[in-house]
């Protein structure tokens, strides 16, 4: 991201400040906010029966004739080059169709990195993919074997002989800090924010905290491993992939392989967990290239270790947070700076200061992120990149300050809630963090917390309560398209390329379509997961639902016009214009005169049409540049720490969320809980063991990389304000990522309350509490 971008985004924001709200998307609240029937109902997920019956087809399950199976060989060397490569034994092994190395891999360009300016740029790494004998990170793919069975491919892969000349690699975080870069922007925000003189305020304040917080690298562990089944038909390419970005992947693959856009079709109806990890990486390119060389359809499923080796995870960070307060507890300085890893060939800036920019007002602010360059597989987006670990540092510091001041930590937060966005000055579209705290504290029983740490004990166990704020910005992506088709029988089909990753996308959009079109849920079909359908943006930044909703609203507007035209004059609607009618009762009705109504069936029958179909794109998402649009949460945690062993056992978690309209309480609660469980892993167990001596990940298995087991997960209560956001489609803001934010700090703060020990380095393992 560049200085130019800072200027552009800054200018747009400034200009939008002068534009009347009603001219913009979200200027007039979505009428469905007031008129909900299916939305907000506890609808069971539509794909549930398919999933439990094993009928949902995932990418690695698609059957194809003459299919061959791929196995990858990874470099154990971090930096260097291949000096000897002997594939003869592998090629001669039973069942082997192809051994592909840099010698015979088709010459390809590199993938443009994922960014905000080009929606077809979705690469996670801009390194060359098997184009030469150079090794650039540990785990890089150096060979691919195709064989008639997976076992034959695995066997042959072990017969490839490789020697390397290793060179010195950059692998040490602390040493690399000296060469850190300071990017001009972090995503679409200016990186360095400096208001007033924070260091001077810190030095003179009556109360201050100033500490370093450290978070480890983490890896993606979706249940479904990255996989694709791919076939060439002449110059046409068919890819069944596990991806969060169906349409953009198809466009990017067409560009990379020099194909016409319409000749690439990516199918991905179901994805077994994405979390930011299921983008475009080397394995898709390799499988597609191998399928072309072999002239056979190919299936490639990464091993669990393979995911660790070639799919990036969350960057480690070192963060400084300093807060100063005056005698009344008003923040006079807020400092959040630090280091994370982002090699120049990667795309994820691990935006850990984002929450800090919106959560508190302070007289002086100093925020800047610095990037370290290491020889690694590029780190990537991983559930609430930035906020998940940024809120750990910030919200631990707030708790430390509250303790130093002898003020209740909730009270201290409420005293410093901003009226407007603290950096941009933009008004909040909707913001009820205070209510989320009050509601959450009431249900959780916060009043039972003892302010003095280490004073509640049950046997060997020390009891502690803690809380913290979570935060995630609202966004809507440009490039969202939806096709609405009405059928002669009065049913409707919604079509867009988006995939179902388990969060309930199809279910919620069917609920939405039902209310938008005035139809019952069972009259709606949702077609998805196919790049041949109107393009949806990638599922990222918790903005898929709002983005599709915006496009569907636009399509519905267009459909009204089309239906009025078809209805002609021989209709109760005759003479009404598009702005004077709305969808109601399986048809169209006058707004002022609801009795003037005609059903879709009647309109289509009279017009002699089997279907009527419109496609529309969502409006430009300018609302979040004019308004400050953020979701926030209050996370509460009750836990025990063994006074003997330091083991931490979480007894209870509660999340109180302020995320606009909740579209489906069942799928939303599931999203929140899942995020909070991942937050528990972040707090207590998850850590990538990256051996800085070698640059190699040492715990590339689920046995050695600890995600929470069932027994680690307590009762989790979730609740929400449910206050609609007047500036977003349906009044909703994304909920996919906010669940993880704030949890690590709530746990750390509860550990402090239990023991009096402040742990500033995740994960909070027992040795840190002995």
């Amino acid at each position, binding site marked *: 991201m560049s200085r130019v971008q800072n200027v552009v985004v800054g200018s747009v924001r400034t200009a939008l400040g002068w534009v009347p709200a009603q001219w913009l998307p979200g200027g007039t609240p979505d009428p469905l906010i007031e008129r909900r029937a299916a939305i907000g109902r506890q609808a069971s997920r539509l794909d549930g029966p398919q999933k439990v019956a094993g009928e949902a087809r995932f990418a690695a399950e698609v059957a194809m004739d003459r299919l061959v199976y791929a196995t990858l060989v990874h470099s154990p060397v971090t930096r260097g080059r291949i000096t000897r490569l002997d594939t003869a034994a592998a090629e001669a092994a039973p069942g082997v169709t192809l051994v592909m190395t840099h010698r015979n891999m088709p010459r390809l360009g590199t993938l443009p990195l994922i960014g905000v300016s080009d929606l077809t740029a979705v690469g996670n790494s801009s390194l060359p993919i098997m184009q030469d004998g150079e090794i650039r990170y540990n785990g890089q793919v150096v060979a691919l074997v195709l064989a008639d069975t997976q*076992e034959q491919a695995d066997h042959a*892969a072990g017969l490839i002989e490789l020697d390397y000349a290793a060179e010195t690699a950059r692998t040490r975080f602390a040493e690399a800090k000296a060469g850190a870069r300071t990017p001009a922007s972090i995503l679409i925000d200016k990186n360095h924010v400096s208001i007033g003189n924070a260091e001077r305020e810190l030095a003179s304040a009556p109360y201050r905290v100033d500490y370093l917080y450290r978070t480890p690298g983490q890896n993606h562990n979706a249940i479904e491993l990255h996989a694709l089944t791919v076939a060439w038909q002449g110059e046409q390419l068919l890819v069944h992939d596990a991806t969060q970005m169906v349409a953009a992947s198809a466009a990017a693959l067409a560009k990379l392989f020099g194909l016409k856009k319409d000749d690439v079709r990516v199918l991905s109806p179901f994805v077994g967990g994405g979390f930011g990890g299921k983008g475009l990486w080397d394995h898709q390119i390799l499988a597609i290239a191998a399928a072309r060389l072999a002239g056979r359809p190919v299936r490639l499923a990464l091993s669990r270790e393979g995911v660790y080796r070639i799919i990036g995870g969350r960057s480690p960070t070192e963060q400084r947070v300093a807060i100063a307060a005056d005698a009344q507890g008003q923040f006079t300085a807020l400092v959040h700076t630090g280091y994370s890893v982002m090699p120049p060939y990667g795309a994820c800036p691990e935006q850990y200061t984002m929450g800090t920019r919106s959560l508190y007002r302070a007289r002086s602010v100093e925020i800047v992120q610095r990037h370290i360059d290491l020889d690694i597989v590029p780190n990537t987006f991983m559930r609430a990149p930035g906020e998940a670990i940024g809120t750990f540092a910030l919200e631990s510091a707030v708790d430390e300050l509250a303790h130093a001041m002898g003020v209740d930590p909730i009270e201290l937060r409420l005293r410093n809630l901003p009226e407007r966005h603290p950096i941009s000055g933009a008004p909040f579209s909707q913001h009820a963090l205070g209510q989320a705290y009050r509601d959450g504290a009431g249900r959780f029983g916060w009043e039972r917390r003892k302010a003095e740490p280490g004073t509640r004990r049950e046997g060997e166990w020390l009891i502690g309560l803690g809380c913290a704020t979570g935060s995630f910005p609202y966004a809507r992506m440009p490039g969202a398209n939806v096709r609405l088709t009405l059928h002669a029988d009065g049913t409707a089909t919604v079509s867009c390329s988006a995939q179902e990753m388990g969060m309930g996308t199809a279910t919620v959009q069917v609920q939405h379509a039902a209310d938008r079109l005035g139809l019952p849920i069972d009259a709606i079909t949702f077609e998805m997961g196919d790049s041949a359908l109107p393009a949806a943006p990638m599922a990222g930044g918790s903005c898929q639902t709002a983005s599709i909703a915006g496009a569907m609203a636009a399509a519905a507007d267009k459909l009204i016009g089309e239906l009025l035209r078809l209805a002609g004059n021989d209709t109760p609607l005759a003479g009404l214009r598009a702005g004077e009618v709305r969808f109601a009762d399986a048809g169209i009705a006058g707004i002022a005169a609801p009795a003037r109504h005609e059903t879709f069936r009647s309109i289509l029958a009279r017009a002699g049409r089997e279907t009527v179909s419109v496609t529309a794109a969502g409006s430009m998402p300018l609302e979040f540049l004019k308004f400050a649009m953020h979701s926030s949460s209050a996370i509460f945690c009750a836990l025990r720490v063994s006074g003997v*062993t330091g083991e931490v056992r979480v007894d209870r978690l509660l999340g109180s969320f302020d995320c606009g309209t909740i579209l489906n309480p069942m799928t939303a609660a599931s999203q929140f809980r899942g995020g909070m469980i991942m937050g528990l892993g972040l707090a207590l167990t998850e850590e990538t*063991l990256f051996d800085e001596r*070698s640059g190699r990940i040492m715990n590339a298995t689920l046995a050695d990389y600890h995600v929470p087991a069932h027994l680690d997960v307590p009762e989790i209560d979730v609740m929400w304000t449910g206050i609609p956001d007047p500036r977003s489609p349906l009044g909703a803001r994304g909920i996919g990522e906010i669940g993880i934010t704030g949890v690590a700090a709530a746990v750390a703060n509860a550990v402090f309350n239990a023991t009096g020990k402040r742990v500033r380095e995740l994960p909070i393992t*027992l040795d840190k509490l*002995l």
Partner: protein
Amino acid sequence: MIPVGYVRASSLGAIPPMLAGDGHRLLGGGTNLVDLMRKGVERPSLLIDVTALPATIEEAADGGLVIGAAARNSAVAAHPLVRVRYPILSRAILSGASAQIRNMATVAGNLMQRTRCVYFNDVAGSRCNKRAPGSGCDAIGGFNRYHAILGASSACIATHPSDMCVALAALDARIRVDGPGGARTIPIGEFHRLPGDTPEIETALAPGEVIVAVEVPASPFAGRSTYRKVRDRASFAFALVSVAAGLTLDKERIADIRIAFGGVAPKPWRALQAEALLRGGPATSAAFEAAAAAELAHAEPLAGNAFKRELAKRSLSAILAELAGVSR
């Protein structure tokens, strides 16, 4: 992946000749061996399935138990005699792995488990003297949070991962083996070996020998014995430190006592020094702490596992206090 042969052993007598070939290995539940084969750590040429060997759990004449080599871990843990007379053994087994793995794993296989050292497991990228003798040890100076503070050598610092064996060590179990040299019995304390210069040799089994059964002698500790496992998550993680302990009291004095540690050494670590200090002495917190400190005085911690000395001391003191009913 390497092609491998597979045969089922129909009787005990059939096994020793089968074992004679190069790379011939016994297969129980496969919960460890098959994993290691997938990683390329183990490369057997022939697997001899011994799950048809005796899996019975029978009462011995002396009031102890004889557990067949092929008995499943879950069957042992659930057996009424084990639960009543050896709760320490039942608890240890149930604190290991998951229900699914315990249903597969055999008693002999549990005894023969190999370390979970991440460098041992990393064939492609790491040096390991246990896996490739003489190649070096990347765990020293690397990630050694799970590694040994007692009994290790400059060649190897790996720990034995079993929970069951820690309880067996405290119970003075004996391993009944058979082979070319005839039947014999090996005390559990001599079954697993310390690494020294030959970390690749892990047990006292001679070539061709097969574990037939585990004998657990009658124990006076049933009423006052327990197993506590301290780990990084509440279940499905290996021990950082575990303690198996049992004692009998004669008024306020300790009549007899057994203590074994897991997670701190290349083998289940019988704390003989602590036992000797406590036997016949007062059952007080001070005595427990002094004995724990004496046992751990020989610990040689590394950067990643220095906390284990304190953790082991505290865990042992707390467990003994609990068993003796002494408030701390």
